[in-house]
């Protein structure tokens, strides 16, 4: 942080380039006070919020059962995902490389806009590289500080990095960046608006460096793999499927920019390529992930079902309720308070209530409702069977044999978790939607009404589009929430459900807490983290197009 403090200090407002003029001194003092105020909070956020991600990466490379054991490389990932693990890391490396290149493009664009020679901003890469390397030294040192002494003595782990070297490098980098900056401002015609390129330079070097390290590391691990040939074939399979999907996407995007005749044709081609890619992926996936931890994939599938069935239903109900509550009706306040109760009550307790309501007894609350509706009692939380099949069978619509052949969808036990989640979060979503509705200006409704719009049209063409920022916010929060979900599932889970209701978070926790397989479970947690990150980016990308911020 100190790096930036000083580097921008020299940003002079006038021709005066002295390092510490009276004004600079005041700014420096303000900066120091600010960082003094920030330091305790930042220390905690860094130590328990950001550092653990790097540390998880380190732990995941070891066999770590309570104590740190031998180094295993990517073996934990391969145990979890199968040979897909290599593809996974290659993809991350490629993504990082793309991010780095995009940053470079951005810098080049800025330099063009500022009308300076193209090489001027790239001078910052020198201090940037030094600072990035210094940061790496410090992070490595911190991570391996937590390696266990026995493991270090036994040569199974080593202490890497040096804090002092890191600090010195950062200091050198900062001083260099000051010098480079003065040089840059001399080389550039437009001195006044010269932006500081140090931070982008650090980011570029760090991402590109990480991409190279990760890529070569993965390659090396792949070559050491016992099933090298087999793994390469599998990777080729998977890559072909992914390339097909990517081509489909590119054609689609290209088509969107064409006129309507060509667009139709291109969309059809894109859809065909997409379907082919999807089918190919589905066919080879079982082959590629052979030998992987079945439960890992099952837990991911459970998470996806959980997320897909929860979020739309929950948001739909909440939006409808909010729209109704928004009308001038009596009892708005009390209703809002009541809807909020499930959200506010402690999750362990409410999950406990649900586990009684949905217990396997024929006399349980849920079963009584089912019987009242004309079905047979089912085992709810203790039923690992498919939800749709079991419920249809309960109403006598299909035979038990057919029911057991239905495998597509969540288990009945997971369905209860989905009910629970909807029940808890509808109240919260309703409150947020109400706040969003309050932000829509009345004049729009009035104008539309003068034009004779019906109330459905008002909702469809004014409320719904203008509510899209709120909807977007809630869908991000809810999807990430379902991926993070832990407490209620941990309380609701029964041994009889045979792990069909274990979403990713719960399965990882159980392997960590009960199985004490620290390395293995952190490797899976990292995979989950990357998945969430990708989901977030996709959501962000979609939102850019369809969210209207007025």
């Amino acid at each position, binding site marked *: 942080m100190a790096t*930036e*403090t000083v580097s921008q*200090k020299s940003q002079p407002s006038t021709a005066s380039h002295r390092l510490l003029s009276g004004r600079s001194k005041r700014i420096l003092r*303000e*900066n120091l*006070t*600010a*960082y003094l*105020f*920030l330091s*305790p*909070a*930042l220390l905690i*956020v860094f130590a*328990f*919020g*950001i*550092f*653990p*991600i790097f*540390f998880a990466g380190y732990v995941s490379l070891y066999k770590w059962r309570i104590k740190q054991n031998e180094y295993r490389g990517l073996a934990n990932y391969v145990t979890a995902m199968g040979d897909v693990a290599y593809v996974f890391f290659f993809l991350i490396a490629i993504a990082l490389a793309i991010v780095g290149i995009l940053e470079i493009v951005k810098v080049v664009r800025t330099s063009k806009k500022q009308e300076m020679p193209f090489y001027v901003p790239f001078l910052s890469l020198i201090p940037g590289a030094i600072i990035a390397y210094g940061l790496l030294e410090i992070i490595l040192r911190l991570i391996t*500080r*937590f390696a266990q002494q026995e493991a270090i003595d036994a040569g199974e782990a080593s202490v890497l990095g040096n804090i002092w070297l890191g600090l010195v490098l950062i200091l050198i980098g900062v001083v260099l960046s000051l010098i480079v900056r003065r040089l840059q401002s001399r080389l550039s015609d437009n001195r006044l608006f010269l932006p500081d390129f140090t*931070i982008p330079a650090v980011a570029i070097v760090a991402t590109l460096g990480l991409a190279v390290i990760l890529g070569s590391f993965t390659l090396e691990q792949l070559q050491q793999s016992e099933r090298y040939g087999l793994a390469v074939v599998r990777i080729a399979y998977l890559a072909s499927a992914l390339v097909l999907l990517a081509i489909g996407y590119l054609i689609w995007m290209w088509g969107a920019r064409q006129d309507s005749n060509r667009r139709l044709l291109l969309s059809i081609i894109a859809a065909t390529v997409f379907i082919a890619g999807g089918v190919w992926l589905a066919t080879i996936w079982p082959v590629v992930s052979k030998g992987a931890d079945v439960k890992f994939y099952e837990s991911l599938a459970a998470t996806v079902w959980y997320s897909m069935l929860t979020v739309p239903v929950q948001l739909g109900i909440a939006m409808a309720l909010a729209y109704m509550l*928004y009308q*001038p009706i009596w*009892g708005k306040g009390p209703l809002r*308070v*009541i*809807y*909020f*109760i*499930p959200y506010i*009550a402690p*999750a*362990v*307790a*409410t999950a406990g*209530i649900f*586990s009684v309501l949905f217990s396997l007894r024929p*006399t349980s609350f849920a079963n009584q409702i089912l019987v009242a509706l004309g079905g047979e009692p089912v085992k709810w939380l203790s039923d690992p069977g498919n939800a749709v099949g079991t419920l249809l069978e309960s109403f006598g619509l299909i035979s038990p044999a057919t029911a057991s052949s239905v495998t597509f969808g969540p288990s009945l036990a997971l369905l209860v978790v989905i009910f629970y989640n909807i*029940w808890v979060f509808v*109240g919260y979503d309703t*409150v947020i939607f109400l706040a969003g509705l*309050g932000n829509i200006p009345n004049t729009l409704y*009035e104008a539309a009404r003068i034009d004779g719009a019906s109330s459905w049209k008002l909702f469809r063409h004014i409320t719904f589009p203008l509510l899209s920022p709120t909807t977007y*916010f809630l869908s991000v929060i809810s999807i990430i929430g379902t991926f*993070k979900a*832990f*407490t209620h599932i941990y309380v609701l889970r029964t041994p009889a459900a045979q792990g069909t209701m274990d979403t*990713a*978070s719960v399965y*990882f*926790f159980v392997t*960590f*807490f009960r199985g004490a397989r*620290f390395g293995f479970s952190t490797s899976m*947690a*990292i995979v*989950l983290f990357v998945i969430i990150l990708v989901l977030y980016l996709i959501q962000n990308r979609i939102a850019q197009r369809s969210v209207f911020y007025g």
Partner: protein
Amino acid sequence: MDNNVQSTPWYRKIKISRILLYGVLIAYALVSVLPFLVMLSTSLMTLGEANSGRFLPSLGDDSDITNCIVYRREEVFNEEGVPEIKTHFVIDVAPEAEQAQYPGFRSTTVEPDPTQEDIFSIPFFTNYCGAWEGGDLGRYMLNTVRITAIQVVGTVIFVTLASYAFARMEFVGRELIFAILLATLMIPAIVQNLPNFLTVTEIGRWFGASGLGLCGEKANCWINNWPALTIPFMATAVSIFLLRQHFATIPDELWDAARMDGSGHVRFLIQIVLPISKAALFVVILFAFIAAWNDLAWPLLVTNGPDWRPISVGLQSFFDGEQNFPNLRMAGAMIAILPILLLYAVTQRTFIEGLSQSGLKG
């Protein structure tokens, strides 16, 4: 907003739609509270009643269904040979139908035992006292209050300082650091929890007997102690964000006037900003409380005894232990929910507004 719909009351022309509107809204209100009503009713039932599938308790005047839980205290010796009072439940008159239906259902028949305290026969007392004592819920609630108190002190100091810096100070990298802070919200807790457990263990060892020896004989100062439970949560992105939003609304004139009178940042913060930010601080404190009451994964990892276990873990292990006693579990749930509901009843306005600003739960 009321204006707008009053000017064109579409629903007044068709009365049915209004009835429908109320019908749907009230129906969902019922869905929201129904589980709680079932909880209340089941918690007042005997075991037989709870398993019979009836909706309302007989409260003791239904002689057909006997109360079959005996709540018994015993003196046992723990691993270190120290006598401890243990409370456990046995079924007195196990319904045979139950046994036939569910093999493995715990069905100890109690023999007359002079040391046995068969305390209450009214389900209300049996269930609630049973859950309170059997689950040791009183102790866990007290633990939660202790944890929250420590956490609140830390939060108020650290978060206030950081939010103030973000809101009112100019410093290099402010946007960047704030963006990084908000990005931590995207990280799933499980990725942080697992390595944090190792970090906390290691830090605890530094302070422990083999290190600095700050906590007496204990080998680890953090695990199973308040630091592991509170310190990682003393500065969360949500609370910093919330408080910063509030501090940013304080008019610059106040700051100018204070500086004119010769006060620096610290004095301005303590004497002016904090007193006018009581409401926002209250929301932050509420969060700390709710989080301490809700969080399960982290306390499961870092506590291994009852000394500092919060109510979430206590209740979860109580649920685990009393699988076959829905009435006891419901009573336990009721006990854990009640304080939060009371708090909610008193502060619901602040609650709803504060939480709707943050978008997060525990």
